[in-house]
């Protein structure tokens, strides 16, 4: 802020003072702002969660009707490791492949359910409809249902990370 013109004989000295004041405070501000930014915006070096969890027996899975499975998985929540209940909708597709969908609608995260009559997944919030293979049939949902990484060992279904629907569309 130019509060007074430098007209006195000590103009050079005055300029030096001003430069030092602004320069030093600039360094100090940057030195605090930078670590604060890194501290707040960099993701934590989180411990990896358990990769594969057992989601139960799928020998009785009907190819036409998806099944809701409940399983426990560990989740890192800040400084805590939570062991919490999660759900997945498990479906057997026409080609015999077993897929597990994340339990939330890809529109705004409401819990959807299987409509036996229509044989479709229906979201109660904004009427998004998904087919048994997770594709959007109708409604505002922007992408197919999210899928868990999955593999079948014998009759047991193992689930890994939840992958966004737009990623698994290509796969």
């Amino acid at each position, binding site marked *: 802020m130019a509060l007074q013109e430098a007209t006195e004989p000590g103009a050079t000295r005055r300029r030096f*003072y001003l430069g030092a004041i602004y320069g030093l405070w600039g360094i100090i501000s940057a030195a605090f702002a930078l670590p604060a930014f890194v501290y707040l915006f960099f993701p934590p*070096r*989180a411990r990896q969660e358990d990769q594969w969890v057992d989601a139960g027996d799928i020998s009785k899975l009907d190819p036409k009707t998806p099944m809701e499975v409940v399983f426990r998985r560990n989740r890192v929540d800040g400084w805590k490791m939570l062991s919490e209940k999660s759900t997945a909708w498990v479906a057997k597709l026409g080609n015999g492949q077993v897929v597990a969908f994340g339990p939330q609608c890809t529109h705004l995260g409401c819990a959807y359910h299987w409509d036996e009559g229509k044989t479709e997944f229906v979201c109660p919030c904004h009427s998004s409809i998904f087919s048994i293979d997770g594709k959007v049939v109708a409604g505002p949902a922007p992408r197919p249902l999210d899928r868990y990484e999955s593999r079948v060992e014998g009759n047991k279904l193992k689930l890994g990370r939840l992958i966004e629907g737009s990623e698994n569309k290509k796969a």
Partner: protein
Amino acid sequence: MNGLRDKVITWLDHRTGVETAIRNFLYEEIPASSGWRHVFGSVAVFLFLTQAFTGALLAFNYAPTPGEAYNSLRYILTELTGGRLIRGLHHWGASMMICVVVLHMVQVFLWGAYKKPREATWIAGVVLLLLTLAYGLTGYLLPWDNRAYWGTVVTTQIAASAPLIGQYMSRLLGGESAVGVVTFARFYGMHVLLLPPATTLLIALHVYLVRKHGVAPTPEDELKPKVKFYPQQVFRDTVAVFVAFVILFTLAVVARVPLERLADPTDTSYIPRPEWYFLFLFQTLKFMQGPLEAIGAVGLPALAILTLILIPFVDRSRLERVSRRTFAMAAVALAALCWTGLTVAAVATTPKPDLAEEIDFSGPTDWMQLSPEELAGLGYFQKEHCESCHTVGAGNPTVGPDLASTRRKTAAWMIEHFKRPSAMVPGSPMPPIQLTTHQLNALASFLLKLNQNNAESLLATPSFAVNGALVYHDKMCNACHMANGVGMKIGPPLNGLGNRRTRDWIVKHFKDPQGTSPGTIMPPYKLPPQQMEDLVTYLLSLPG
């Protein structure tokens, strides 16, 4: 461009008066003798702002309840980028604040700047000093490690010993029965809700009073014209603030503030010590015993505070040169001497803590969960240089498979593989490992525990633990003792040994078991000094 800026400033000034206010503040007239000695107040304000800023950042990732507090602080230190720096700044900022506030006070005292009509300014300053100390006292508990816990046990007991009000103080601090959740909530509440606004208000009052009465002149100033606060004095203040800033950042980066063991109320071996600036009070208490104790704990500090407050009313002499104020200088010298003497005495009489007590628990401590055999396996892993052919979790691909993520084989398979690699994996280029079956067992058990989550931290296990476990495994201590749930129970279990025995005792016990525990069936062990030290440190570090 300039025209627009002036317009904006004028517009703002007409609506808010902010430019006029800044102008009045900066162009305040100060005595011609003003100089470097007047910078301490500004530095103290800077440090206060630093504490507020770093404190708020810490609070963003901190759970203010016992136990959780410790875990969240560990999270800040080990998992958040810059977390250790922010905590370091807050920790060292507190110490620096005490130093600067005291320097500020000494300067004012030496020059007699508290004299009429500046008594109220001085008293506000004394109260600010007390608030600064209150931050230190309440903040000390918040990491909830052993140091925090035991330090606060002593603090609350001292408060409880105050005559008449002791019982009420104790209730107020929530420390009636023990230091626990209530005490913690009270301390945290004071530290973040009560003290900051109180300090802000008092600083405002203090600065207002300085401005109202003007900076105290010296006798030489009477004939000289006054000068402006801006820019020369602002320049000096800025340079001083910058020096403080450099010192603070250096300390925060270089001097690592440890996090000790989680607070353990059953730990009978812990030696509580207050923060360095309270050591002189702590030492005073040692000289005051029996009925004198209440005087030392409460009476003397109260008297000291009262004396400080009364100084401007006792010394009503006229303004004089600082060089003539010999009595004031003598008083400062005496106070400094007493403080230094007591502090040095306190430091000198503090027993050197066991190495195990110095383990920094803010680093990864996954190794503490391993059994001695598994930890010894890590030792063989390192001795055999397995890492020259295998990656563990991260790093560039090498000849051998990544040991943290390969599908688990059984221990028996691994041991056969170690002995004759190509027998289990046809065509394997791995050379046979020249170790005994006993040692290969340990190596296999370690590899079974290794996974991608713990690989990095396990490989960073301190060397005393690895070497100690190697000795432990080599001497087959597990044939009689249990550690981390593994081993026989013929001898006493070794977990929590640090709470029961001193380092000296354990060393003596190894050399001559009959001497320390008559009738024991433990055979004597003659170990080279380094092995002995590593083993004992490792044993002391076993979780209790």
